[in-house]
C-alpha cells in the first residue's frame, strides 16, 4: 500500500469542496420539481425531518468513516469499509463507493458539458429572438435527437459539437484532478462556490421580484403565484407516504450520501481534526443553495411566463435547457445574456465541483493499492469515463442515459447507504462510532444522535430501500392499501415501472430485443446494464488483487 502525500490546504477549502460535492444540478432542478409534485409547502416539513434524522447522521457517519479509514492509509471505500468490519464481504460492499461514481460521472460530465456549451451560447446571444419551440428544438439538435426512432436502422446520435464540448469538459476535469486536492479541487471550489452563490442570488432576486408579467390570456403568469404554490402549507399531504418518500429521497440525493465521495474527501483529514462542525457547515451550505436559491429560480420564473398549469404539467430536468433560455429572452438582450451566463454558469460550477468529487475515489484507490501517480490515475480515469460515457451519448434516445442514472444514480446510492449505516452503527458499533464522530469536535454533538444513528437512521433508510424495491403503481396511502389488498386476494402486486424488482425483470414491458432485425431500446438498456455489471465485477476483481497484495506484504513484514 502506497502512502498518499495528498491533503487539504485549508479548512474552508475542504468545506467548500465538500459543499461543492453536495451542491449539484439537482439543487436547482430536482428539488423544486419534487416540491411542486408533492404538495408544495407541505413538502418542506418531511424534507426537514428527513434532513435531521437521516441527512445529518449520514453526513457524520460518512465523514467519520473517511477519517477513520484515512488515518489507516485508506483513501477509498473498499478498504475503509474493510477496516471497519472483520468479514471479507465489507471490502466488496465498498466497491459501490467507486462503481457509483464511475457510473454517475460518465453521464454527469456529459450534462456538465451542456451547461458549459450553453454558457458560451448565452454569451454569444444564440437564443435571442427564438420562440419557446425553437429553443426546445435547438437543444434536441444539440444532443442529436431524431425525435422518432426508425425500425429499419439503429438511430445513433452523433452530435458533433456536443461530443467536442464533452471531450473539452472531460479534459478540464482530468486536468484539475491531476493537480490533486489542494492544488486542483480546492482551488476550483474556492472560486466556483462563491460564484455559484453569487449567480444564484442574482437569479433568485429576479425570480422573487418578477411579479406579474402581463402575458396575454394567462391569469396565473405571475412569479408570486409560483412562490405561493411552492410555499403554501397543505398539512393534509403530511399523511401521504408518497410525500415522505419523495422528501427522504431528495435529502439522499442532494447531500451526495451513499456515493463514497464524502469518505474519500474526509480520508485526507488528520486524526483529531474536527468532523462534526465541518459536516454541519457543508451540509447546511448545501441546504442554503437548495432551499433559498434553488426554490426561487426555475419555478417562479417559469410560472411568471408560462403559467401555473403549464409548470405543473411540464416541470422537469430538461426545463433548464429547453425552457429557461426562452424565459430569459423576455428580459431583453442584455439581461437575457447576463441571466443565461449566471444560470448556466452556476449549473456548470455545481456540476464540476460534483464531478471532481466523483473522480477522486477511483484515483485514491489506484494510488493507494497500486502505487500509481496522480497523473497516471487521472488519465486512466478519463479513459474509463470516456468508454462508459460514449454509449450514453450515441444511444441517448434508446434510454442508455436513463439506465445509467437509474442504476448508479439512484439504486446504487440507496444500497450502499443501507449497508454502510448497518456497518457503522451495528458492526463497527455505536461506542466506536460515537468516539469517531465526536473526537476533535468543535461543536457539542447532541447525544440524542447516538440513538438516532443506531436506530432511526437505519430504519429510515431500510424503509426507503424496501419501498424502492417493491414500489406499487400508486404510492399514496390508498395505493399501498390497494396493493396489499390485491396481494392477499389475487396473489399479485401492482408493480410501479420504476420499482427495482420491475426494472430487474422487465415486469411491465414486453421483452423484445430485435424488431425487423434491428435492436430495440430494451436491447440497448440491457447492454448498458451488462456494461455496468462488468464495471462492478472489474472493480471487485481489482479489490481482490489489492487485498492479496496487502496479505503478501503483511506476510513479508512478519517473516
Amino acid at each position, binding site marked *: 500500500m502506497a502512502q498518499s502525500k495528498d491533503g487539504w490546504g485549508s*479548512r*474552508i477549502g475542504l*468545506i467548500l469542496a465538500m459543499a461543492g460535492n453536495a451542491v449539484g444540478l439537482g439543487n436547482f432542478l430536482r428539488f423544486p420539481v419534487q416540491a411542486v409534485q408533492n404538495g408544495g*409547502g407541505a413538502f*418542506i416539513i418531511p424534507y426537514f425531518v428527513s434532513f435531521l434524522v437521516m441527512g445529518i447522521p449520514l453526513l457524520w457517519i460518512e465523514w467519520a468513516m473517511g477519517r477513520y479509514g484515512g*488515518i489507516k492509509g485508506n483513501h477509498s471505500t473498499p478498504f475503509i469499509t474493510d477496516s471497519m468490519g472483520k468479514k471479507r464481504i465489507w471490502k466488496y460492499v465498498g466497491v459501490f463507493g467507486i462503481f457509483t461514481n464511475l457510473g454517475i460521472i460518465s453521464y454527469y460530465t456529459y450534462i456538465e458539458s451542456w451547461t458549459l456549451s450553453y454558457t458560451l451560447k448565452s454569451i454569444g446571444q444564440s437564443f435571442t429572438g427564438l420562440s419557446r419551440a425553437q429553443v426546445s428544438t435547438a437543444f434536441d439538435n444539440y444532443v442529436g435527437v431524431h425525435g422518432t426512432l426508425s425500425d429499419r436502422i439503429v438511430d445513433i446520435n452523433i452530435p458533433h459539437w456536443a461530443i467536442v464540448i464533452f471531450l473539452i469538459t472531460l479534459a478540464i476535469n482530468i486536468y484539475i484532478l491531476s493537480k490533486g486536492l489542494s492544488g486542483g479541487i480546492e482551488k476550483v471550489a474556492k472560486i466556483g462556490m462563491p460564484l455559484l452563490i453569487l449567480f444564484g442570488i442574482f437569479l433568485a432576486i429576479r425570480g422573487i421580484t418578477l411579479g406579474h408579467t402581463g402575458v396575454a390570456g394567462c391569469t396565473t403568469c405571475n412569479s*408570486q*403565484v409560483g*412562490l*405561493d404554490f*411552492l*410555499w*403554501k*402549507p397543505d398539512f393534509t399531504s403530511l399523511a401521504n407516504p408518497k410525500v415522505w418518500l419523495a422528501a427522504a429521497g431528495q435529502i439522499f440525493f442532494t447531500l451526495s450520501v451513499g456515493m463514497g465521495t464524502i469518505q474519500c474527501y474526509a480520508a485526507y483529514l*488528520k*486524526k*483529531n481534526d*474536527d468532523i462534526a*462542525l*465541518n459536516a*454541519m*457547515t457543508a451540509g*447546511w*451550505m448545501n*441546504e*442554503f443553495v437548495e*432551499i*433559498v436559491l434553488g426554490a426561487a429560480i426555475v419555478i417562479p420564473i417559469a410560472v411568471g411566463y408560462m403559467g401555473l398549469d403549464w409548470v405543473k404539467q411540464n416541470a422537469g430536468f430538461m426545463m433548464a435547457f429547453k425552457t429557461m433560455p426562452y424565459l430569459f429572452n423576455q428580459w431583453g438582450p442584455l439581461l437575457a445574456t447576463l441571466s443565461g451566463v449566471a444560470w448556466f454558469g452556476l449549473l456548470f460550477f455545481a456540476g464540476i465541483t460534483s464531478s471532481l468529487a466523483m473522480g477522486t475515489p477511483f484515483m485514491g484507490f489506484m494510488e493507494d493499492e497500486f502505487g500509481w501517480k496522480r497523473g497516471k490515475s487521472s488519465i486512466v480515469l478519463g479513459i474509463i469515463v470516456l468508454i462508459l460515457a460514449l454509449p450514453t451519448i450515441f444511444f441517448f434516445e434508446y434510454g442508455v442515459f436513463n439506465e445509467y442514472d437509474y442504476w448508479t444514480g439512484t439504486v446504487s446510492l440507496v444500497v450502499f447507504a443501507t449497508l454502510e449505516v448497518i456497518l457503522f452503527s451495528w458492526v463497527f458499533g455505536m461506542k466506536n462510532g460515537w468516539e469517531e464522530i465526536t473526537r476533535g469536535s*468543535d*461543536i457539542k454533538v447532541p447525544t440524542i444522535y447516538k440513538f438516532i444513528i443506531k436506530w432511526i437512521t437505519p430504519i429510515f433508510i431500510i424503509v426507503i430501500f424496501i419501498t424502492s424495491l417493491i414500489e406499487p403503481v400508486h404510492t399514496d396511502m390508498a395505493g399501498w392499501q390497494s396493493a396489499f389488498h390485491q396481494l392477499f386476494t389475487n396473489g399479485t402486486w401492482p408493480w410501479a415501472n420504476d420499482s427495482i424488482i420491475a426494472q430487474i425483470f422487465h415486469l411491465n414491458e414486453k421483452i423484445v430485443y430485435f424488431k425487423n432485425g434491428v435492436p430495440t431500446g430494451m436491447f440497448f438498456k440491457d447492454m448498458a446494464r451488462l456494461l455496468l455489471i462488468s464495471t462492478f465485477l472489474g472493480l471487485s476483481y481489482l479489490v481482490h488483487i489489492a487485498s492479496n497484495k496487502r496479505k503478501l506484504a503483511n506476510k513479508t513484514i512478519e517473516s
Partner: protein
Amino acid sequence: MSTSALILMVSVLGLVTTITVYFLVKVLRVPPKTDEELEREEKEDSLQE
C-alpha cells in the same frame, strides 16, 4: 401570495440562512491548531502505532 405561504417562506429562508451563516462563522472563528498542538498529536499517534 397568500399570508400562510409568505410566513412559511420567510421563516424557512430565514432559518436556513441563519443556521448556515452561524456554522460558517463558527468555522472561521475557530483558531487553527498551533505547531505545538500538531506536534503533540503526531507524537500521540506514533506512540499508539
